[in-house]
């Protein structure tokens, strides 16, 4: 596994922000997320080749965000199955053009060749893929971090790749459904700690309960304070200025994403009855 940087995307970091990696079976390799540019995808592919000459049979995308999928193009020549949530293709179709323009604008030539590669196989609920004596159990989740979150469980090592359902140290980004995400976290919290955990951002194998509780505390605080603001008749702008600011000391990149999260939370929660 390769750890992404806890930064915003830039030419210097080539969009290398997300945790990406691969799993090697007896017959096949599965790549899990591919990084924020074609260049990161190529570096990941080179790492695969240093470890094994087995074919890359699967590229699994955990969700639509550009820092996780823009390296897909590096694997096209391997002719793998590209696997994602049943809603991933629609999300890529809707957002791809925008993401592509943004990555070229923000990163310049470093991002050259970064394109969306749509899934060739989808997961509606759960699906198991076999790498040759090594099974990966995929699970598609209801709308949470995005509307197309997918997790990967490697039975051989007991590793659960939660990707962006779990942010460690870096402030979570709400781009799906805040209430849905809180439900997912409640379910994860009821689950026994796996042997290993890979978050989408932040160090591998964080303390299971504390990592989940930290994220839940952040999302809960935002939800609670935004609900109170809506009930009090405060506007979206007033909520953005006040809600959740007590969480600031606990998270990296708070100033870059928190106010946007409040905007999203307000737009969602104002429709609650």
């Amino acid at each position: 596994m390769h750890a992404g940087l806890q930064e915003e995307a830039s030419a210097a970091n080539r969009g290398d922000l997300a945790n990406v990696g691969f799993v090697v079976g007896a017959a096949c390799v599965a790549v899990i997320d591919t990084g924020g540019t074609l260049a990161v995808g190529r570096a990941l592919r080179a790492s695969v080749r240093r470890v094994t000459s087995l074919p890359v049979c699967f590229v699994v995308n955990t969700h639509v965000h550009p820092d996780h999928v823009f390296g897909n193009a590096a694997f096209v020549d391997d002719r793998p199955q590209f696997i994602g949530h049943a809603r991933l293709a629609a999300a890529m179709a809707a957002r791809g053009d925008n993401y592509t323009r943004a990555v070229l604008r923000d990163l310049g030539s470093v991002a050259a060749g970064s394109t969306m590669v749509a899934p060739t196989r989808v997961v509606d609920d759960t699906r198991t893929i076999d790498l040759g004596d090594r099974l990966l159990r995929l699970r598609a989740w209801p709308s949470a971090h995005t509307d197309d979150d997918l997790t990967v469980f490697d039975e051989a090592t007991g590793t659960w790749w939660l990707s962006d359902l779990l942010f460690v140290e870096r402030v979570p980004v709400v781009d799906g459904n805040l209430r849905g995400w809180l439900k997912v976290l409640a379910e994860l919290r009821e689950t026994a700690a796996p042997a290993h955990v890979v978050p989408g951002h932040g160090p591998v194998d964080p303390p299971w309960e504390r990592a989940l509780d930290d994220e839940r505390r952040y999302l809960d605080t935002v939800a609670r304070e935004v609900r109170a603001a809506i009930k009090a008749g405060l506007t979206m702008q007033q909520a953005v200025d006040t809600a959740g600011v007590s969480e600031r000391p606990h998270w990296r990149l708070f100033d870059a994403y928190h106010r946007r999260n409040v905007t999203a939370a307000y737009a969602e929660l104002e429709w609650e009855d």
Partner: protein
Amino acid sequence: MPAICSTVLRHALVATLAAVTCAVAPPVRAADPDPDPQASAIWQRVRESLFQGRTIESDASAVVALDAPLRAEDASTVPIAIHTRFAQTSSRYVTQVYLVIDNNPSPIAAVFRFTPDSGRADIETRVRIEAYTFMRAIAETNDGKLYMATRWVKAAGGCSAPAGKDAAAAMANLGRMKMRVDGPVTVGKPVQAQLMISHPNSSGLAMDQVTRLYRPPYFVRKVSVSYAGRVVLEADVDFSISENPNFRFFFVPAGEGELQAQVVDSKDLSYQERLQIRPSGGSS
């Protein structure tokens, strides 16, 4: 039918302005605002089409103010507020407020019309912003004078941003509306109400990566609100308004009555919402 005529006219206007945008707008990535908001080429064209040679007072501080964040958190959802500086009376009132976003594909984002029954000609909503831009609120008073408040806003990509964090849920809720009134309601006193409309309000400017086609725009184009049968707000709007259009406005209850909202979208589908109001302090 008048509705169809106005649709055609409006689209013609939008098309003209969009063409103007493409023809003369420089690529707007500037770090600094234009030195002179009057010099904006788009504004000159919009101004000519809306107001011809009429004088517009740029010292609008006694009439209208425009609040918008200098830097928006999310360019597809930028909250803005237009505040007028005096209460609506039958002798002096704001008849309409134009909201112009210079560098949007369709710069005339909204025209809000008010009456003395509005109580205050204030409006709050959320807009999409496609590029760093001047935003303008131009208030017209019942004596025919125009006053303009201007803000510079840093945000980009809001019109071409894809709609929706949860596309399936959004379409399932199309046309759902909510209306609420905050605070105590007293006869004869302006009170603020909020109208929420569940609608993709899509710009048609986000390309489908699979088909390589732009979906046609689909947006709310008209909003009418009355209280006890008297108009308090009418608005012509377009896809510069964010997904799930949201408006806060005022009305003056003369007694018990029903707040009624009617919304028409660009497919001529119409949606209605009602809210019974029982103000205190009334004789009824």
